[in-house]
């Protein structure tokens, strides 16, 4: 077996040194009747070529985003990632290192985590960011628990524009942790009255902008209403590129900002691994979940970085920790940091501008179609349309024609009267030809 360096002779010699005549002597603590005496019924070892063939066959049964006009978003977005990113994250010293618990030989990781935290704080307009969560949805769940710790209250209000998977994660966690959740009904037109739901038992309000239907939300009045009642505003985003063109949640008064960082540096990967971003105000640092990287000096006074404030974390605090998270999104944060460094503010603004322009162009084209209503007035790179008929069937039909038209709202909100709504994402990857193909196909099938 190519991954195992010990030869049969090595094994015999080593067993002799250890003082056992059979390998199973080392497994003697396993109850005798539980020790397997046969090889389990699974395929036997294969060479690299055979494994490649098998997996390539499975891969070939999927339709990759880049092979068709592609408009699927709703929480994960197809963007162009520069070749440099994938090369760098495969450097052995990054790829095969562990969590930087020995900082003297992990400055590479710690240095980029410090850059990552600074970038995320700047993007979100917040004071501090942590070294990542699993993804945007689990970051949202943790943000709600954090708000409960800070306010010593127990009730979260979730906007009807929040991605329903994020809502489900919050509801599951809250239900298990005996916390209350008020969920507003799906809010296609961004008309909900969140402010009316805030009273002095509410710990936090969770609002996504752009919301799951693509509409930009005004966070400022909600933040003010929260603060007037001693509650916190948790601002969520699923498309981090929007922050290149849209006022930051920090500017709008958010107390905790969480979101999905996948769009920068990370591919679609059928849903993971992604990278959860988590930022807040300085006064709440000690209530934050997750790892934090901080600056310090070494014994000779040289600048260096370490993991810090770990008295919040499970390995020190055990059942009193702010979270149970340990392994986070390490390498995905590196991909994010490198891509962000390549972009810089200038590149990010340019990228966001192209995304928005493409979405505006498509919205205009769709609005001109007879049986299509474009829902959004203000949006970034994603829009929702109402069509005549069933959006799921439409999407399936267009997939047959080689066009991925978007996400039927009913896939995210089943049985909630949104069967005729389609959510359509546009990024820099969508060309004018892609849009023309989508519009033509819609005309044909409707």
């Amino acid at each position, binding site marked *: 077996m190519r991954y195992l360096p010990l030869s049969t002779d090595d094994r015999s010699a080593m067993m002799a040194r250890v003082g056992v005549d059979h390998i199973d002597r080392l497994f003697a603590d396993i109850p005798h009747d539980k020790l397997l005496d046969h090889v389990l019924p699974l395929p036997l070892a294969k060479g*690299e070529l055979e494994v490649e063939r098998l*997996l390539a066959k499975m891969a070939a049964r999927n339709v990759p985003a880049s092979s068709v006009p592609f408009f699927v978003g709703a929480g994960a977005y197809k963007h162009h990632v520069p070749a440099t990113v994938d090369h760098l994250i495969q450097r052995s010293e990054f790829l095969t290192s562990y969590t930087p618990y020995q900082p003297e030989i992990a400055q590479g990781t710690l240095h980029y985590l410090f850059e990552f935290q600074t970038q995320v704080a700047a993007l979100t307009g917040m004071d501090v960011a942590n070294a990542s969560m699993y993804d945007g949805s689990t970051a949202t769940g943790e943000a709600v628990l954090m708000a409960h710790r800070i306010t010593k209250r127990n009730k979260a209000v979730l906007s009807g524009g929040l991605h329903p998977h994020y809502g489900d994660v919050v509801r*599951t966690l809250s239900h298990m942790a005996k916390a209350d959740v008020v969920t507003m009904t799906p809010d296609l037109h961004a008309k909900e009255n969140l402010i009316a739901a805030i009273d002095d038992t509410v710990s936090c309000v969770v609002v996504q902008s752009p919301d799951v239907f693509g509409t930009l939300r005004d966070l400022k009045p909600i933040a003010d209403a929260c603060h007037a009642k001693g509650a916190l505003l948790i601002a969520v985003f699923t498309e981090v590129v929007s922050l290149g063109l849209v*006022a930051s949640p920090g500017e709008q008064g958010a107390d905790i900002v969480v979101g999905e960082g996948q769009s920068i540096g990370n591919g679609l990967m059928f849903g993971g691994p992604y990278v959860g971003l988590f930022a807040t105000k300085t006064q709440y640092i000690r209530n934050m979940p997750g790892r934090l990287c901080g600056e310090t000096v070494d014994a000779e006074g040289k600048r260096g970085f370490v993991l810090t404030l770990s008295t919040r974390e499970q390995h020190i605090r055990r059942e009193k920790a702010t979270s149970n998270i340990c392994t986070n999104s390490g390498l995905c944060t590196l991909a994010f940091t490198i891509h*962000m460094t390549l972009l810089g503010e200038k590149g990010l603004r340019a990228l966001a501008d192209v995304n928005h322009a493409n979405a*505006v162009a498509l919205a205009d084209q769709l609005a001109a179609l007879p049986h299509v209503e474009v829902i959004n007035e203000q949006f970034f790179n994603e829009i929702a349309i109402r069509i005549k008929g069933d959006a799921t069937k439409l999407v399936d039909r267009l997939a047959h024609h080689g066009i991925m038209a978007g996400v039927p709202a009913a896939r995210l909100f089943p049985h909630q009267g949104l069967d005729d709504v389609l959510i359509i994402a546009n990024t820099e990857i969508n060309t004018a030809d892609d849009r023309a193909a989508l519009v033509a196909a819609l005309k044909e099938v409707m």
Partner: protein
Amino acid sequence: MLNRQGRPTTPQSGASDTHETFTGNKALQQIEPLIFEIGSTDQTGVDIDPPAAYRKRLGTFERKAAMGLPGLSEPETMRHYVRLSQKNYGIDSGLFPLGSCTMKHNPRLNEKMARLPGFADVHPLQPQSTVQGALELMDTLAHWLVTLTGMDAVAMSPKAGAHGELCGLMAIKAAIAARGEADTRKVVLVPDSAHGTNPATAALIHFDVRSVPVREDGTVDPKVVAALAGPDTAAIMLTNPNTCGLFEKDVVAIAEAVHKAGGYFYADGANFNAIVGKARPGDLGVDAMHINLHKTFSTPHGGGGPGSGPVVLSERLAPFAPVPFIRKTEEGLQLVEDDAEATKHGAHPFGRMTAFHGQMGMYVRALSYMLSHGADGLKQASEDAVLNANYIRVGLADLMSLPFGNKPCMHEVLFDDAWLKETGISTLDFAKAMIDEGYHPMTVYFPLVVHGAMLIEPTESESRASLDLFIATLRDLAMAAKRGDTARFTGAPYHAPLRRLDETRAARSPVLKWTPPQPILEAAE
């Protein structure tokens, strides 16, 4: 000695390795600034054409204020991150004996497979008919996991080990609620030797943690468990093989004690690498167990993640598994994503762990690893991992102290610091001296039940020659420590990119991001 160019090969006076260079660099070790110190906000490493003029639809929300995000050109970016990488130690750099973490070889075939566009470039919400191969991959991996563990079902979506623990305990909580005992069964038993994530997970969803003391021999006593378990008990969380590197020999009796009290057996599967193909958790009475694909099944740790923590479940807990899950139908594989659909098929999901379907990128790597090894190779890998750990044990047992005696261990061997007594050298000092010798230290100060713990896990990826050199090195260090060569330890590391870092200072006044240097104000006259 002179080399062929007539230059001396041994250090001469005046050319010691301590002389300062002009740049502060030492050859390959370069002092590297932060991007904020070298980049600028009008520099960029991408070429993006501005769109033709158009009317924005941002309402009043356009971002006007400067963000302060610097960019770098592509060559500068490349050099910056390559230089940073050179300050890191990885498995590919050398032996990485970090106990509990299973730092085994990360095959590059796995990386190549995970990047096939059919896996890497598919969206989680594409029509299911266009991702049948991705679902097949998940289903195949699930089959391997339940077969290797002898369990009934697997919840694939948890994102890492701790997330898997959360998933398992949530399933247990749901099962208890379904029995109508939600108000009475609130206690989770956790041995003192457990990883911090175990009690933290239990507390996160409002279980009360009751510690189980570990007995003299480093394992859990079923009589103690029986005494602590009762009608208030929801579950035990037991790591097996445990964090002392020992197999819980009374695991069956422990499972029985907990089951008899009406509770469930959650197993922390972080150490599964010792027993793959040798024993099945399902045969030992386990109800739920997470598997760290990033440990046992070789997906890279990536400097702290991402991981993947599928949870295998017993028949009793399987119906409560979260959405999404995969179902076989006439037309192919179906991903069941919501409660209503799940209920139709007789399931009672407790909820959802994460957006979408979990860590596909890790699933591909793990399956690539499994297919490569096969059932036979996986068993061999576990045997080699255990043999390697025992080889280190016998190689060091006369110099370093074993808290539970010199007897066989599983895939990791645990030493304590009793042998360092009166040397003035701590476990941490010893670890830092290993850095100078070119090794990543072992896990230190964990588990907490042992004073000054040093937990060594070599994995099956090490050759005998590599182990021999490692043992010789640790022997040399141990003898130096006993000889009183204290400075070699207390000042270590001497040869790493940085000397020992001041962690106290970092925590006292935290600096968690870069801020522009403040201009020095002229003192007012």
